[in-house]
């Protein structure tokens, strides 16, 4: 009985993990600009990974391997938001404007606009 319950929990966790990863993928594909995409990339994905890894830890039972899973979880939770922050900060540094609802430009236009503001194209080549 306990075993069945455990298996059922694992299944539910895997499904939840898949669902949130699906959400994250959909978000990255659908959302209009790099900032909004960074949202789902850092969050839904982290949660999806969290659920799935929890399922794995549960399946592996008590032992070194499941400690490792917990460590995986910890590192993902620490590093993923940092990565998203780094990416969005980079976008901001480059001058890419966030898209808003009353903005009818596409992400490509926003990118072009940001390059227009600086000097376009290669900004590092003439550095040396």
């Amino acid at each position, binding site marked *: 009985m306990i075993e069945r319950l455990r298996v059922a929990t694992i299944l539910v966790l895997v499904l939840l993990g898949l669902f949130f990863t699906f959400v994250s993928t959909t978000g990255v594909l659908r959302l209009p600009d790099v*900032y*909004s995409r960074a949202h789902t990339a*850092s969050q839904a994905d982290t949660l999806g990974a969290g659920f799935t890894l929890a399922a794995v830890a549960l399946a592996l039972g008590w032992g*070194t391997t499941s400690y490792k899973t917990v460590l995986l979880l910890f590192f993902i939770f620490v590093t993923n938001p940092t990565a998203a922050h780094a990416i969005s900060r980079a976008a901001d540094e480059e001058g890419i404007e966030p898209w808003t609802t*009353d903005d009818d430009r596409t992400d490509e236009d926003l990118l072009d606009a940001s390059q227009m503001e600086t000097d376009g194209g290669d900004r590092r080549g003439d550095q040396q």
Partner: protein
Amino acid sequence: MSDDRLLVPVADTPTVRQTVESAVKTALGDSEGYVRFVYVHSPDSSREEEDPTVDPPVKETTEFLNRVVVWARDDAGDREGDLTVETARLGFDDYLFSPEDVAEVLIEDGTAHDVDRVVLDPEYDPGVGAPFLRPLEYELAKFPGLDVEEAPVQARARRTPLLAGSTPIQAGALFFVSFAFYQVLAGTLELFDVVTGAVSATIVAVGLARVTFHTDPTFASLGRTLRLVVYLPYLLYEILKANVQVAAVILHPRLPIDPRLTRVRAAVWGGLPVTTLANSITLTPGTLSVRVDGRTLTVHTLVPAAREGLFDGGLERGVRFVFYGRDAMQIASPRERNDTRVLQPPDEAETTDGNDSEGDVAKLNETGGDGANSNGGDSR
């Protein structure tokens, strides 16, 4: 240029003595003999666990400045009479985080005292951390009518955050963490693992103690760790709740998003608390911290609900709870403190922020911010 008046920001660096000497020489040589030494207070990263509303170490800085004056008189020698030395402490009431902040304070003070030349100690860093001098020089140089020069000091033993020596407590704490991690990886407590684990942990402790810790970990940090454990479930709950919201928005056929860039000035100070808050904000769906300048967070919000949640400051309270204790949670929300702002106001004049651009509400309500500070101070 015979009428140059010098401004010299000083801090306790290995080369400050030489800087003073060089400044005095310059002052007596081709200037009118006026030197103004200033000490810029800033939230020393080593004090990040405290609410920086506590009085800065007045006594120490006064002593330090007195020492600088004595040095300057020494260097002047028999021409002491020609030399005018002034000292001042700056940035006392503000919390300076970036080179720009410091540059601004220096420029303000310099203009007030009619200074036209800044002599920089090549090692100068008022404790903001991070590579500092180059950005500061850059910022100062942007201000017209102010010459910036580096004092020609010998033996530039540069002290970066990575180089200062580590203390036994730091190394010990890191040794413990590293050793524990190693044993978890190994799984068995065999002699081989214990020996190699000890060797590895020693390497890690010696190599990275200064990278990981700014200060000695204390019992207070143990308390913070415990409170962090309490905070995590709350964070997890927030993440889950918001994730469901955002998932609904993303899977919705019409994609009803309303992204806006916002700015929040958080009532937390120092590297670790701000990072914890920024990462918590990033982890919570719908909000993403884009820039962190000092305690001013630029946050991209995806949906209005997330924006409201951010302005209500639940996470900020949580982080304050972790780092400053339970009492510090009683704080007005960022919205009530007037510490929030939507950077991309919609074209239609919906919000009170108005349909006009930035200038309108440019200034934040200072009392709001200060109220938050003193609140934190009381809580200690």
